[in-house]
């Protein structure tokens, strides 16, 4: 396969830029059903990731994603820090030390990441969390891989599914995380973590389309 460390570094940088640009939107979403810090949290985390990468880029996709995950765990805090951190770490672990990986490898790695989130946060689809964006994104990606689509096409489909998944959290009542405290009042708002997941998958699309 042809996805190398440079591609994954580009992904991380795309995320950092996207989070910075959408920081206030994410915080506003978190204001409605949370504690108004999601944008600041991810901005702090991915700024640290970008700095770490500027200081020296790991050679392999696996090491790179592990670095992203560990940096998020060390810098973000909150619920999203450990969850995203664990996801990138597990994805990195799944990629092993290959210098470049295939789209199918990436699909498997992201599935390992999702499993990490699920294990740590024990959320299932419909709980109004980041899982509601990541799970459909992965289904779309897996299917596209099976259909033999090229990376840009396949990840594009995943990004669309993530966005749709995030939108679909609007009518849900939260059952996990801070928004669950609101009970029925959590209905009618997009989940901030699902929204940021959609950003993250869109950033991957941007990276593979470069």
């Amino acid at each position: 396969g042809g996805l190398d460390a440079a591609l994954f570094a580009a992904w991380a940088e795309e995320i950092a830029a996207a989070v910075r640009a959408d920081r206030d939107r994410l915080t506003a979403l978190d204001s409605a059903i949370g504690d108004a810090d999601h944008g600041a949290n991810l901005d702090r985390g991915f700024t640290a990731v970008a700095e770490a990468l500027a200081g020296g880029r790991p050679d392999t996709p696996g090491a790179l994603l592990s670095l992203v995950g560990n940096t998020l765990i060390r810098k973000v805090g909150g619920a999203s820090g450990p969850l995203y951190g664990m996801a990138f770490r597990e994805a990195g672990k799944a990629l092993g030390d290959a210098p470049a990986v295939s789209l199918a490898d990436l699909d498997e790695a992201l599935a390992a990441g999702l499993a990490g989130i699920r294990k740590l946060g024990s959320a299932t689809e419909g709980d109004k969390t980041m899982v509601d964006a990541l799970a459909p994104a992965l289904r779309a990606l897996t299917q596209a891989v099976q259909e033999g689509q090229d990376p840009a096409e396949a990840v594009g489909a995943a990004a669309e599914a993530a966005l749709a998944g995030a939108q679909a959290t609007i009518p849900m009542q939260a059952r996990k995380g801070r928004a669950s405290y609101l009970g029925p009042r959590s209905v009618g708002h997009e989940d901030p973590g699902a929204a940021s997941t959609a950003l993250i998958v869109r950033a991957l699309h941007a990276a593979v389309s470069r």
Partner: protein
Amino acid sequence: MKKLINSADSVVTDALRGLAAAHPDLRVDVKNQFVARASGPRRGKVGLVSGGGSGHEPLHAGFVGYGMLDAACPGEIFTSPVPDQVIAASSAVDGGAGVLHVVKNYTGDVLNFGMAAELCADEGVEVATVVVDDDVAVRDSLYTAGRRGTGATVFVEKIAGAAAEAGAPLAEVRRVAEEVNSRSRSFGVALSACTTPAAGVPTFELGDDEVELGIGIHGEPGRTRSAMRGARELVRVAMDALHEDMPLDGDVLVMVNGMGGTPLIELYVAFAEVAAYLEEKGATLSRNLVGDYITSLDMQGFSVTACLLTPELTRLWDAPVQTPALRWGR
């Protein structure tokens, strides 16, 4: 939004510098972002470490000192600390008898402290954890992240701190902490939202004739929005919620806590109503705190926390404590 800060990004570290300047009894590690007793760990004493997002001052750093916490890990505003902070603090205060983590039940706190505890074990620091979940506004069910940890945290930190100071082993300190938590309930009411430095606008908008009932401590909206009422009625809503969940009886320790922007005179007005309520139920107002102990930045409102005391808990509550925000007996 106007805040007495230099910048939204530096508020936590700037405040830590202020804390260091104000309290020579504290060792403030700005780099690793934790606050510990300057005296260092005491050989054989269980260490008590707590932490959570900033914006709840004096919680937690204001409770570091003799008879209470050994260290506190302040995260960013309303954001749980990261595992590194907790690991650094736990290692710094371990006197060989292990460390108790006092964690408020929020997904972020539980996850970050949980990761830290695993890594502490790897480093040879024995860690036990008590998760505080006293907020009756949230039903503990499959469909929530469980009850939130709020005011009882102050009671747990004081009482478990006294047990640790007296030389109780880790399992015993944890037992006492869990007993305090299981005998405590809280309920909060907001008259206004708060504004985080990062967001710059209030977390929600409340009309002049509205209140939020069943709020947490992170500026989230509460369980329900309701019509504004007098202090007597608002206190009754809160006390009824506590009493329904845990009948108030016997000796009770009560805290009427301000959310950060509530004038003290109003907290005393509320406390008078709390005292009247307890009398009506035949419970004894045995010990109390009235003031700002666990806040939400500039939010106006209050919370009530009640703990059903036992003779042991009363004794531990009365034991000397010397911290920036709670002090008696020395």
